[in-house]
């Protein structure tokens, strides 16, 4: 099936099987390997992206469902190689260690701050509740998002 999708402002057209998951489409067909896969059951959030302004787990969407949509991934956050404020904050506050959950975390934080520019700690934790991290214990991730919100 034909899929026309815009990702980080760039248009792509591909022919894919209906059964292909959006995360595999991004990683394998479009070579956008920033979004990751960490589980089989939609729990870990490593695959989180923003589709038409809505934060989703791309492992629970088919690529064909994104036909005609606007997708934002981690690769679209920096501008001309300059890290955005959120990315800077993650680095400054040591909000990442192995970096595997980080793209999904950044997209969740991006969605959170768009909807709620000054979230409380509870709201931040709720905003990233769908993103598992095994390295940081979330402490510095929350600090980073707080700092980015200021």
């Amino acid at each position, binding site marked *: 099936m034909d899929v026309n999708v815009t990702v980080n402002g760039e248009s792509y057209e591909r022919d894919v099987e209906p059964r292909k998951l959006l995360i595999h489409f991004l990683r394998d067909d479009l070579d956008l390997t920033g979004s990751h896969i960490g589980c089989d059951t939609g729990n870990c959030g490593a695959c989180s992206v923003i589709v038409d302004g809505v934060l989703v787990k791309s492992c629970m969407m088919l690529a064909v469902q994104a036909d005609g949509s606007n997708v934002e991934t981690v690769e679209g956050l920096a501008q001309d190689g300059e890290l955005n404020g959120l990315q800077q904050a993650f680095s400054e506050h040591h909000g*990442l260690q192995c970096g595997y959950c980080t793209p999904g975390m950044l997209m969740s934080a991006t969605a959170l701050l768009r909807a709620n520019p000054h979230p409380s700690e509870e709201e931040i934790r709720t905003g990233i509740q769908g993103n598992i991290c095994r390295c940081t214990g979330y402490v510095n991730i929350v600090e980073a998002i707080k700092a980015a919100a200021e």
Partner: protein
Amino acid sequence: MTETTVTPERPLVVEEGETRPGFIGQNIRRKEDKRLVQGEGVFFDDVKRHEMGFVHFVRSPYAHARIKAVDVSKAHEVDGVYGTLTGDEVAILTDPFFELSTPPGANIKDYALAVGRVRHVGDPVAAVVARTRELARDAAELVEVDYEPLPLVLDAEEALKDEVVLHDDAASNTVWSGTFDWGDFEGALAEADHVIKIERLHFDRFSSTPLECSGCLVEYNRGTGQWTIHGNHQMPGVGAIWMAPALRVGIDKLRFVSQDIGGGFGNKITLHPQFTACCLLARKLNRPVQWTEWRTDQHTANTHGNERTFLDITVPVKADGTMLGFSVRAIDDCGAFPRYEPLGCIIWAQVTPGCYRWRNVRVDFTQVCTNKSPVAPNRGYSRMQHLWLTERIIDIVAGELGLDPVDVRKKNYVKNEEFPYTTPNGCVYDSGDYARCLDIALELIGYDKIEEKRVDAESRGKLLGVGIGSTLDSGTNNFGQSMILNPELQFSGNNEVATVKLDIFGEVVVTLGTVPQGQGHETTTAQVVADILGCTPDEINVRAGHDSYWNSHAGFSGTYASQFAVTGLGAVKGAADKLAGEMKQLAAAVFGCTPDDIELAESQARIKGNPEAALPFMALGAILNANNAGLPEDLDISLNVRHVYRPQFEKPDLERKYGNLTLTYATQIHACVVEVDPETGVYDIVDYAAVDDCGDRIHPQIVEGQVHGATAQALGAATHEIFTYDEEGNLLTPNFYDYHVPHALDMPPLRTGYIESTSPFTPLGAKGMGEGGGAGIHAVCAALQNALGKRGEGPIVWRSCNPYHRVWEMLQNPAETRKFVSVESR
């Protein structure tokens, strides 16, 4: 280039061999971050090769069965299938993997695919390779395997009976067995005023489940016989030791490449079976093959942490609360194949008495195979299980005798003035101040107000409990401890390698023998080198990741066992010191003075007291590499140095099982406050403090990040993370839906504190600390015990993981666990 956020206030002046903190001790921005926050990291699944085939493993649905036949013919009929591999082929093409144990464990035959028999659910039986991931999965369903189910054994104590035996070649489930007896336990019993007996304690199965699953992309070069494995093996040196003889090739034919790894926590050390299967496929099919492990496969069939049962624990205690020692019978369940085991049978001995001054210890240790997932050195490897035992002992004994849990710990802790402290089996604890760490932890959770909090909790119908978890993170192994298990093994000491060179344009380039999975090696390395060479971390290029072809490495290279700050940075320091020396020699030759007249500062080599006479690094690099006519003949330098750091160890005394097994001992002391709802068994961790001491901190944020992460993992292991099996050997928690790991809202408020007790034994005074030692598990168990138990009454918390249903059972039927403990007072 990343920007350094902190610059030293004064230029560094460095004497050869000495490192003065400039960037060491600062929180500079991590070099790894820029690529990782842009999604530009390179994890193995990001690597692609033209026409690569995707691998899907056909896995056993049975926990124990004979394989009568494997028929791949229907899979081959599918268009787009490139080929298959079966156990029969593996048995012909490879030799079984090297076993570390003595007989009978030594006789176990472990192959890349199941040969003749499957021994745990998920055991790989065949592999299918196809053009797409989906096709490989589809074709795998067409592989027909004829199984003859066999009886199974899922319990370690049952396995000991050898009624159901997993490995015919071993003719027993016992992988290893031995006794350890130090001090005079009988004498201690005679001297005791009280003897507490704990019938059983059990450390549950769990793992740190790194978010990135295992996997590789393997290419085979037919012309040279060279395999290149783009995979996330965290200790490729040891991987090669297993794989090369199995594949009947030299070690150099296996090249391991990784750049970024999404967490390992010890679960990416025994990937050799799957990697070997992929190597065979790459060669057979003459194309690159790619395997990505799924979460379900990681939980069912990759690795778990060691599961350990402690029986007949006997603890002699004096009236004043002095604990004289303990004896225990330990049974370790390593699952279907030992692999890195039986090392776990000795590694615990690095911390035999835990944090305590117990002099008389007797341990009867046996390890068995069962029809469960094989184990790997999961974070805290074997010490965590043992330290949990020591903390449960302290806690239960204190509870039974009505001793204050703080006082009894301080009474029995190794005291600050006793360091370096030699344990009953010859391990030397380098430094620490446990009592002080405990005080800080208690202050952080408001321990002095605990009784008020208890009353408040009661008014809301909740039972409050407070618990302490003390632990040690022993780091930098002396591999000679493996000889205690098997005198035939030729492993002892430890080492790590680093290279540092000054390139033609004055660029400093470092390669590491280690394989980081998020610990910030590039960053801390740059800090150390910058301080030695008198420049900034931004000017130090540390090659990202590890490539065994190009990164110099040694027998023990890798990232594991809480040692990078010692071994990795020790190698880095040694190499940088040598390079600094060579740079001074070169500058001296150019200026016509002696090397002692030269200092390295502000990215230059210059004459002391005459900063105008300066050579920038670029000049030094260019002179030696491209403009070297006229240099003295006896100037023997290369500006490209390799250093092997080797800690000072002796081979242990095998007969007494005595000797120093680890170089450093970091401390973590945690305190935990829980509130239990007696109506449901549901509990919350309402307050939490973690205090660590890892000697001199190279990068405080990185250290704290490790403490946060270790705490979160321990809290998961204490509350919901448990690998439970049904009667047929099916894992009931095979994914994150049922195996609940902490999410952001599950974390308690986490307060941290630290002290720095310099290690006298390491190049930088730092200690390794990444694993942590599971203090959170010890603390939560103690807190639950405090909430649920009363002196002489109430249940005993005897298992490491306490999901709500276990708390409920303890509330409903305290007698059932109370009977595990008896006190004999004289």
